[in-house]
């Protein structure tokens, strides 16, 4: 799981980092002393889990959650119990840790998060099995069939997505998240908040980009490990 820490206190960030280091499959991608900097980061990167301090000056942890369109899983960290009831009104909040965080309680929170993730993954797998080889898109009141293996790139632009296939490009009023749910995971990967690619169509990969047909597509730092996993490297 790729994680970030948001806390205005360095001591708190070091404690969480120390606890994370002892648990396998948890990678701290970055840490931030305030929510504003984290929002900028999340606009460019996808992560699985945020350790979020509630009590920060100017922009509180709960304000931060409200500002996110699709918040990832969140574990709140705080010295104050007064937000506990409000916190559980948010689906993305998995747990609520009181500072100073004790190791057993931290491990319990991570276990809870992993269970949560496992449930989501198994749901995705079932959905994946049900995927067909094509889908229909609504363009100018016509339903047009698109063969999934023909798609090499899907790009989000404002309220529309551009679906690029070998022969034709389609502009559809939808979101990347909606279409992502209809695509087989075995073929497609979201490499950036604005791009989903067909991994079978990759021509080459550089540090932070992939070449697909003639398009150079940026790859977010957090998505690069998953991309590398999908490649059949010699």
């Amino acid at each position, binding site marked *: 799981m790729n994680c970030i820490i948001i806390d205005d206190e360095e*001591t*708190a960030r070091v*404690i969480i980092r120390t606890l994370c280091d002892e648990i396998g499959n948890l990678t701290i991608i970055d840490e931030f002393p305030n929510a504003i900097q984290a929002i900028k980061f999340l606009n460019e990167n996808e992560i699985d889990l945020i350790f979020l301090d509630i009590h920060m*000056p100017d922009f509180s942890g709960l304000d931060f959650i409200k500002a996110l369109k699709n918040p990832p899983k969140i574990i709140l960290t705080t010295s104050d119990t007064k937000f506990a009831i409000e916190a559980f009104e948010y689906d993305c909040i998995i747990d609520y840790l009181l500072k100073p965080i004790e190791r057993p309680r931290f491990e319990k929170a991570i276990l809870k998060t992993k269970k949560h993730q496992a449930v989501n993954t198994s749901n995705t797998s079932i959905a994946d099995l049900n995927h067909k080889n094509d889908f229909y898109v609504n363009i100018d009141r016509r339903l047009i069939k698109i063969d999934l293996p023909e798609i090499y790139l899907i790009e989000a632009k404002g309220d529309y997505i551009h679906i690029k296939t070998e022969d034709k490009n389609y502009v559809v009023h939808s979101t990347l998240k909606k279409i992502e749910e209809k695509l087989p995971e075995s073929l497609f990967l979201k490499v950036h908040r604005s791009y989903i690619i067909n991994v079978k169509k990759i021509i080459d990969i550089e540090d932070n980009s992939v070449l697909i047909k003639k398009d150079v597509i940026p790859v977010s730092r957090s998505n690069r490990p998953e991309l590398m996993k999908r490649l059949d490297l010699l």
Partner: protein
Amino acid sequence: MEQPNLIYIDKLANGDESVKKRLIEIIKTEFPKEKKEYLLSLENLDYKKIEENVHKLKHKISILGLEKSYEIANKFEHKLRDQRLIDSKSFEGILIKISEYLKTI
């Protein structure tokens, strides 16, 4: 009378001296800054800031194992929401105690 201690830090470090050292160094850097900010907010009678400063300092108080002092800080923080400064002397006593302790580690 309770004294600051490293029980929590030792447990967290789990025998790793580098973690212990790093955490102590950060506390020794952060604490005087937070204390200074608190005293400045107090001087300006900026209740919202004082509350924020106390909240931040509370974490250090608990890390250093000062359970009773943590309760005092907690009550002080809550009273500050009603713009009451009643426990400021007791709170400052805790800060002095921590300052002295940090010189010894």
